[in-house]
């Protein structure tokens, strides 16, 4: 897959306008948007805001009234629409699979149109099924109706990737799935994207989905213009005006928790020691820290036990194997939300955070999380002030 795979190209929308005949105000008005190569850009907004129209103009399912769209530096107007679309992956809600064709035939459509030899197509189909997590033997010759919604959507993604296009357009692809399948396939898409680095334009009205999968989010407002185009964290901490704030619908601190990984924030420090450290030295540190306990690490710096101040008092020589084993810890890849959940369910106020190779990287308490959120917000506020924007 990785060999010779096509990575994303940038897409540039320049003063793109779409007015439908007899439609009054244009659906999209003088839209400028730069979509960087290899990123997922989410067009987010309520229905009727022009996000789907914008996306469909990229592969010319809708022709712009005026303006220019450059894909990898080439104007889309210069390419025959059918040919253009064969090199842009297209995924829609409920996958849009052809029910009268097998899974393999569905995936093979674009390579067939491109005139690939039969053998290469068959190999490609199996490769793609494996890539999206479906066993080729089992699914190759099934019909779409026999598959679950999530499986259909995977086949839809496989079909879009069939001819290895640099660009993928996805129009509310996971909108019809139940929450659990949706979460799972979103994770899957992010995993795939890490590997493939396509340029993906993703249309949704689901704020959480946008925050989760978008590298950049363009929030759109009726009629057809972008009110804010920024990274998810910035949109949460610094929404551009009432409209965005209203559309996000509150709870932005909670969302920030979901967006931030434990490894990204400043962690707490607690006293720690190896088993052969002198107990009196450790006791001094614990007294200085004032919270009454310390961590014992093994030779690879992996947390072994909690030891309380009382257990250290009066002990001479090495710390040894005193203390309670560490049962709950937090990974540095966890989102703050999951970490918070773990923290609330644990019976200690502080939990060790494990970094690479499960080595001790710091500690997390409710206070740490709170500080982190505050500092993220403060940082954004400062950035805003520096840019001289109104708060």
């Amino acid at each position, binding site marked *: 897959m990785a060999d010779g795979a096509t990575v994303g190209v940038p897409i540039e929308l320049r003063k793109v306008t779409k007015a439908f005949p007899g439609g009054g105000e244009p659906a999209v008005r003088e839209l400028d948007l730069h979509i960087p190569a290899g990123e997922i850009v989410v067009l987010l907004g309520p229905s009727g805001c022009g996000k789907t129209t914008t996306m469909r103009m990229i592969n010319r*399912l809708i022709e712009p009234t005026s303006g220019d769209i450059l894909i990898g530096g080439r104007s889309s107007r210069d390419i025959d629409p059918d040919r253009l679309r064969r090199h842009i992956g297209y995924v*829609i809600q409920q996958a849009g699979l052809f029910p009268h064709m097998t899974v393999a035939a569905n995936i093979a459509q674009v390579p067939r*149109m491109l005139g690939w030899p039969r053998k290469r197509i068959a190999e490609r189909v199996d490769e793609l099924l494996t890539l999206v997590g479906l066993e080729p033997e089992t699914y*190759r010759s099934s*019909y779409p109706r026999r598959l679950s919604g999530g499986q259909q959507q995977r086949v839809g993604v496989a079909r879009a990737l069939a001819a290895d296009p640099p660009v993928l357009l996805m129009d509310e692809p996971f909108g019809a799935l139940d929450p659990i399948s949706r979460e799972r396939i979103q994770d899957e898409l992010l995993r795939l994207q890490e590997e493939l680095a396509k340029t993906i334009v993703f249309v949704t009205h689901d704020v959480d989905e946008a925050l989760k999968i978008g590298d950049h989010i363009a929030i759109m407002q009726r009629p057809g213009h972008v009110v804010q185009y920024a990274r998810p964290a910035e949109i949460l901490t610094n929404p551009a005006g009432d409209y965005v704030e209203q559309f996000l619908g509150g709870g932005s601190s909670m969302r920030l928790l979901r967006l931030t990984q434990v490894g990204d924030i400043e962690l707490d420090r607690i006293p720690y020691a190896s088993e052969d450290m002198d107990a009196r030295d450790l006791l001094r540190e614990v007294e200085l820290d004032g919270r009454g306990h310390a961590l014992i690490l093994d030779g690879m710096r992996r947390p072994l036990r909690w030891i309380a101040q009382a257990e250290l008092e009066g002990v001479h020589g090495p710390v040894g194997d005193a203390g309670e084993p560490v049962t709950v810890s937090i990974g540095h890849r966890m989102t703050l939300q999951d970490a918070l959940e773990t923290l609330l369910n644990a019976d200690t106020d502080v939990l060790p955070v494990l970094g690479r190779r499960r080595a001790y990287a710091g500690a997390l308490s409710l206070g740490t999380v709170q500080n982190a959120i505050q500092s993220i917000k403060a940082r954004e506020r400062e950035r805003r002030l520096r840019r001289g924007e109104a708060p």
Partner: protein
Amino acid sequence: MTVESAAAKEETTPEPRIGRSWHVILPPLCYLAVAAAMVGYTQAVPLDGIEHGSLNLTFLRRRTWEHVELVFFSTVLVLVVALPLGVLLTRRALRRATPVVLALVNLGQATPAVGLVVLLAVLFTIGFWTAVVALFAYSLLPTLRNTMVGIEQVDPRLVDAGRGIGMSAAGVLFKVELPMAVPVILSGVRTTLVLNVGTAGIAAFIGSGGLGDLITTGVSTQRNLVLITGCVLIAVLALIIDWLGGLAQRYLSPKGLT
């Protein structure tokens, strides 16, 4: 039927469930038994000269074959006209013409069959081909209508998906719209066939032959046996052709739709 063969190529799994095939042949065997009993009876009882003229086996065979020919040619004509016309009328550019065409076709269907047959005979000439044209006019609607409905009921998202992955308009028509419409189109064709078998009986009025000849003879000479034999044979033919249509519908419809 190039459309079905294209769809069949997509199929990779073997067709299961052959075990219940006797279920499928049972009805036509019954129909044939009824026809055989009827004809057998006419051969066994004593007949007068008029009856013998209409009920001898050579004559029956010829009339039956003529009937099948009437149905065959009129249905082929319907297919040749209705399928392309139905497709055209669902294209965006021609959609405005739809009500006009449907009104015309409805006219053919709404006119009483006898009137239509006689009218055409007056306008042109009597004989086989005039009857074929009359049957065509009378049975065009179901196939045309179902072709249009079959195509229109294809989920627009599938058409969008087809265009979106780079199929041309013709590609979408032949690879998505028509295969998906096959079950509905075939059910229209089946209706056309059955209509034609029945209406072809009337064609005897304008000297085009067919089993209707037995009915007109039976009525005009007051030979009930001849009349009834004609009716039964037409009914049996209609049932058998309907059964064949059902088979076609089952085996030509693309897999994966249910």
